């Protein structure tokens, strides 16, 4: 470990976190899907280098039968005559990787692909805490890839080069490796990697092999000048990048542009049937475009330009990204009736935006075709949102306030992510204070008879009925938020749970405290179950 002395301390990567996903079987899976390969037979992909066809990727079955990457195609065929081989298609592989990188936007807005191999990276700097830490993110990725039966080697490191090297060459990456604890520990792990983590140049690899330098730790005693003389400046630069002295951040994938389907009419069109046919035609085209580009959209704009050059627009939203033709037809089925064409429409368009590749990995690889289609529940909620209005279909989210009216917030379905909130994290029913099942808004004033001013009532008059109270529990005192101007005129409340003779359970409160000589008023705020 004497080599650590020459490593300059680089603090540029402090606090950063890169996750690298190495997908060794992705090219074979893609090619197998494209060519309809038999999964029970060995398969591989080759490429031509200097007029020699060399195998670059092999499936697990082929590896188990003794084949290894780097051997010639003739050798591979000689050993396994039934092997399925195909020429590598890097553009197609890169397209799938780009799609996967956009799928990874669910974790971080900065993701990208590795131009030199089947891998992608995620810059989780400042984002991992949203998912409970880097470990949780890695677990989630592994779970999703496992569902797709896609082996993935994952490593997290403070900079890209280290994450890539660990993911591709460290065996621990098969289980998910996090090397964020410290620079010394990271370097000691990097030193154990083979020299192929530094360079892929065959001449350099051969020279290193002849010198007996198979692992990075073997050449640490050598100075940089010696390394540069023996193996060239690129090798030295690669080592500097790997240990983090030179920053080498790849470019991230770019955001998706909206997809449009347009129609220009030589004569103005009008009438319900014509407009419905026009919308159906554009919907078909849009769905075909989205499916071809393997995209899904959450929001759609239907626009039209009338003969007098005025324009109109309608907006539609889905509860989750969709591209299916049936979904889009149901989404736009009532749109024709809402278009005011006046003297006719010259030009119309449908634009899909808020695009994402928010589909399971399985769908991207085509192993689970039904994953492409949304579930029936989402369709139904979309239909309800269209019929009743998006603000009528809602979820509730908790807020950290004691006042019952402020303790929850109701939001339209598409506006927030439900998975971020778990109501039962803090024990659910076991540790929650008594809360009514139904709330009256606003609370109803009641007249009460109590033994003492700070006692629960013994009788109350509510909705013209006198109710005798047989038992009560409380109080739970909730004060106004002194820092909130909206609560400036609110008094402290004492909440009681009471039960009447008939078994009716009410949540009542006294507004104002007798010991502060405030005027006390009683209200019923809810019913218990």
């Amino acid at each position, binding site marked *: 470990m004497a080599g650590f002395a020459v490593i300059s301390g680089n603090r540029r990567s402090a606090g950063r976190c890169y996750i690298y996903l190495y997908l060794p079987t992705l090219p074979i899976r893609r090619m197998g899907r494209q060519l309809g390969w038999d999964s029970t037979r060995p398969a591989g992909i080759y490429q031509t280098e200097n007029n020699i066809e060399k195998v670059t990727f092999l499936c697990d079955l082929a590896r188990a039968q003794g084949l290894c990457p780097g051997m010639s195609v003739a050798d591979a065929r000689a050993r396994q005559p039934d092997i399925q081989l195909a020429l590598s298609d890097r553009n197609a592989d890169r397209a799938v990787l780009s799609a996967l990188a956009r799928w990874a936007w669910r974790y971080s807005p900065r993701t990208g692909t590795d131009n030199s191999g089947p891998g992608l990276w995620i810059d989780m700097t400042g984002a991992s805490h949203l998912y409970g830490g880097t470990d949780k993110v890695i677990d989630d990725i592994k779970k999703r890839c496992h569902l797709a039966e896609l082996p993935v080697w994952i490593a997290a490191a403070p900079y890209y080069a280290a994450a890539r090297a660990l993911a591709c060459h460290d065996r621990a990456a098969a289980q998910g490796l996090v090397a964020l604890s410290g620079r010394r520990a990271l370097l000691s792990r990097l030193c154990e990697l083979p020299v192929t983590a530094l360079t892929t140049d065959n001449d350099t690899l051969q020279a290193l092999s002849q010198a007996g330098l198979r692992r990075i730790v073997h050449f640490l005693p050598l100075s940089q000048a010696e390394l540069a003389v023996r193996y060239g400046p690129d090798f030295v630069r690669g080592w500097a990048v790997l240990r983090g002295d030179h920053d080498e951040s790849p470019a991230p994938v770019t955001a998706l542009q909206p997809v449009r389907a347009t129609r220009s009419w030589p004569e103005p069109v009008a009438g319900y049937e014509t407009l419905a046919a026009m919308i159906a035609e554009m919907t078909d085209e849009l769905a075909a475009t989205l499916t071809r580009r393997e995209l899904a959209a959450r929001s759609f704009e239907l626009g039209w330009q009338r003969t007098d050059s005025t324009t109109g627009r309608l907006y539609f939203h889905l509860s989750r990204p969709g591209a299916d033709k049936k979904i889009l037809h149901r989404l736009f089925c009532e749109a024709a009736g809402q278009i005011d064409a006046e003297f006719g429409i010259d030009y119309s368009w449908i634009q899909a935006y808020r695009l994402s590749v928010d589909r399971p990995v399985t769908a991207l690889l085509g192993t689970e075709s039904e994953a492409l289609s949304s579930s*029936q*529940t989402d*369709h*139904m909620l979309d239909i*309800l949102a269209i*019929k*009743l209005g998006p603000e*009528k*279909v*809602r*979820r*509730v989210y*908790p807020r950290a306030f*004691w006042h019952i009216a402020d*303790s*929850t917030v109701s939001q339209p*379905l598409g506006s927030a992510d439900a998975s971020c*909130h*778990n*109501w*039962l994290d803090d024990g*659910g*029913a*076991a540790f*929650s*204070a*008594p*809360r*009514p*099942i*139904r*709330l*009256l*808004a606003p609370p109803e004033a009641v007249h009460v008879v109590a033994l*003492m001013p*700070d*006692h629960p009532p013994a009788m109350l008059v509510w*909705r013209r009925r006198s109710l005798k109270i047989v*038992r*009560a*529990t*409380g*109080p*739970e*005192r*909730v*004060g106004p*938020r*002194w820092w909130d101007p909206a609560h400036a005129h609110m008094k*402290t409340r*004492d909440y009681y*749970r009471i039960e009447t003779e*008939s*078994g*009716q*359970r009410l949540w009542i409160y006294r507004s104002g405290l007798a010991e502060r000589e405030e005027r006390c008023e009683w209200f019923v705020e*809810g*019913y*218990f*179950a």
Partner: protein
Amino acid sequence: MALTHGRGNEFFCQKNHKAAAFADLKARIHAQEHTDTARLSLGLGLFDRALSGGFACQHVHLVTGPCDQGSASGFVLALLRRQMAVCTDQPVIWCAPDYGGRSGQLCAEGIRALGLDPGRFIFVHENHPVRLMGAFEEALQTTGIAGIVAEYAMLASKADQWSRWAQRLRRAARAGSAVGFLLGPPAPSASFESSWSVTPGTDYQDKYDWRPCWSVSLEASRTGRPHAANVIYDPLSGRLSAAVSDSAPTAASDAVYMQRHAQHRFHFQPAARQGWDDAGMMLA
């Protein structure tokens, strides 16, 4: 004569055709009614036997209760909790008017206090009763939902409208897979699968025991028989048990409940002794 004979044949053929159509319709209804559907068990032997195994899914059940109490809502939530435990990743749709009125609105904190996850509830708010029932009908036709509840409010006051909706909802529920509950004030049972009346029960032994206690009455059931009993719901375990008068609840469950809810036993204590400050934080 030939003409008369011809007319007779025509009449005979029409009669045969009608008979065949009726026979076909009867066979389809019989097949629909006798298809094995999943059932939601209450965990109460007598009620399960009265319902021939439990609440039938793909059907709508009417649960009524006084509008100024939360007993009927609580009973439906207790049933939904059992269903949500089976359908672990499916949501519950709750259709209700936007305004609470005299019966109030469902409270998420109260749902949590009964041991359910409000995050799995999707609320559909619509003030127009017909549109609200339309949303309920749409949800009933959908698969992948744990349960669907609709609050019908005053819709049942018009008998013809009520029976028409009962038939529509029955057909819609057969197309879906979820169990549906109609919740509201007392109403005719119409053609719903079962009709329930839930009122507060007072059959508790301990004055500190605040577990929900209901007097539950199965008033009508298409495949069962009426039954009534007092039922106690345990929010900790999610179990329904017969009240003391019917059969003693599990002693262990009672002990756990009393122990965990000891913090809320401020029985008739003066407010000044509780140690809650004005910001709602517990000091001691």
